[in-house]
């Protein structure tokens, strides 16, 4: 039996927000482990802490307490964390992000948008796969178009391509279909599932759409900052 590498290891994570005098625990002592090749979706009602958790796992936000290690590096240990530039270096090695709003740069073409990460950082040889990634996402004919000429589903696929060009270890997706109709949502779900199953990409998907959550093999339900349920996708 081969042991797959652990990419994210979180233990006893808490995130406390102060709201006036009140202190709200958006994440309340949560632990989880993510291994290479996994596809995890996190579901839960609005305000349950999904975004907060994803941001912490993706090193975009610091937990108030707890321990977090990504790619074998301890980035946070009980209130003490790495500097912003150290975090940036870890983020660009390990993570690709997509969001509900696609955040494409409106004046750049599809191809240019996808190339933006290379302006700051490029993994060796990454550029030769760009066209393949676009083709895989059905965007090869759209390379020269501007974002405003695309449909919402296409825009999100461009965002996915942009997140993938530097070969991240994990793709983190926060409500990627929040702005799409159910048809396009299903399409994105298929794209993610295919990336996981065919390319072995590790994915963490946050959504309140139960159908989309079923694209993943491992489904976690969050409520009030705690995991209330964890299940595997029923195979059929």
């Amino acid at each position, binding site marked *: 039996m081969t042991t797959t590498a652990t990419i994210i290891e979180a233990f006893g994570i808490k995130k406390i927000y102060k709201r006036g005098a009140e202190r709200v625990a958006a994440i309340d002592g949560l632990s989880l482990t993510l291994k290479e090749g996994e596809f995890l979706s996190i579901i839960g009602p609005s305000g349950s802490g999904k975004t907060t958790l994803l941001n912490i796992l993706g090193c*975009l936000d610091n937990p108030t307490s707890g321990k977090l290690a990504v790619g074998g590096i301890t980035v946070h240990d009980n209130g003490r964390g790495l500097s912003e530039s150290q975090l*940036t270096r870890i983020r660009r090695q390990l993570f690709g992000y997509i969001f*509900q709003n696609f955040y494409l740069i409106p004046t750049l073409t599809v*191809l240019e948008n996808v190339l933006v990460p290379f302006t700051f950082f490029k993994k060796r040889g990454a550029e*030769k796969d760009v*066209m393949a990634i676009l083709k895989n996402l059905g965007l090869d004919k759209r390379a020269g178009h501007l974002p405003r000429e695309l449909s919402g589903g296409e825009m999100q696929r461009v965002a996915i391509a942009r997140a993938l060009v530097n070969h991240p270890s994990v793709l983190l997706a926060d409500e990627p279909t929040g702005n799409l109709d159910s048809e396009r949502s299903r399409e994105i779900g298929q794209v993610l599932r295919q990336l996981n199953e065919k390319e072995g990409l590790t994915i963490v998907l946050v959504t309140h759409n139960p159908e989309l959550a079923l694209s993943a093999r491992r489904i976690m339900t969050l409520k009030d900052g705690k995991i209330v349920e964890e299940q595997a996708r029923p195979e059929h």
Partner: protein
Amino acid sequence: MKNRQRLSLFQIAWKNLARKKTRSFLTVVGIALATWVLISLFGFNSGYKNSLDRDIDNLGFQMLVVAKGCPYEAATLMLKGGTGLKYMNEDIVKLITREPEVESVTPMLMQVVFDPNKGQSGGLTAFLGIDPATFPRLKPGLSFKQGSWFTNPEAREVVMGYEAAELEQREVGDVYLIPEKEVELKVVGILNRSGTQDDGTIFLPLQTLQKIFGQEGQLTSVGIKVNKETNLPLFEEKMFKLPDVQVVSLTQVKTTIMTLVSTARILVLSIALIAILISIMGVINTVLMSVMERQKEIGILKALGALASDVFKLIWLETSLLCLLGGLLGAGLAVLTSSLTEYLIRQLLPFSPSGGLISIDARLILISITAVVLLGLLSGIYPAFRAARMRPLEAIRSEEE
């Protein structure tokens, strides 16, 4: 399909500016105007000084000796209607020539006449009697459009300044009559335009003029050229000791003019500095605004791997691009409008030399553009710092709203 698989920071910056075309354009125009004022001003500074120097060198003599109380400038003379003329005896020339510092000396007699046929209500005409042997040598700057100097020291001939000839519509070979004096003179030469008072003057041989006006043996001024090594202030003092004369040193005149001009220049320079300050504020404002508007996008760039220093560079690049464009446009404007500016300045100045007032060269343009870009870099620091400090989270957070 072969694609360039690389997008430079420069391209991103450029396209960011292109996004708000009007705003970027207005900012660039602000900088351009400031640069334009700056270049024109410094161009004027060096151009004016050069021309003034050249004009004074063209005068040929550094010093003018006139009778005490006599106005020495033709313009002043004209204003006074030619009444202020005072005379010296020709003997003064010998006295001056004795001084070892003197290289050459040229005696002159000026006469001003009211001509009822000039213009609509009559006007004044200035005649200058000159010594054909010395005057042309001392005034190498005068050149002929037609003809040449007099045939002999007593010839009944005139040489006309460019404007005088135009006004009287005379050509070489024509006859010229001095108003009220029944003397016929022959036009033997017409000078090229010099931009000085010589243009309106009619030249005669000294002796001829003295005879016509009954001023035998009299002079109004003596031009002096001294040796190169001469200590001018010392020599001036010596000349002051001569009886009943006053000395007008042209270096003195030049200093007076330059002082006047530099006072005006300081004023304009302050205006230029204010213009630059305002346009810099405009740049800061524009860039800061676009940084605030793009908060989310900047956050995303950071999530895509941009370090704080990358974002800083990007915003800095945008600022410098605005300033560089403004600088180039302003320099172009300054070059294109230099003759208009020159015209306007001529209207304002008490005395304008004949040569170009504004000299804009590559060095000046380069220095000005560099200065503007440096100022731009300076003003870009704050917005760039603000942008660099933004955290990627802010971008993602704000979508929850």
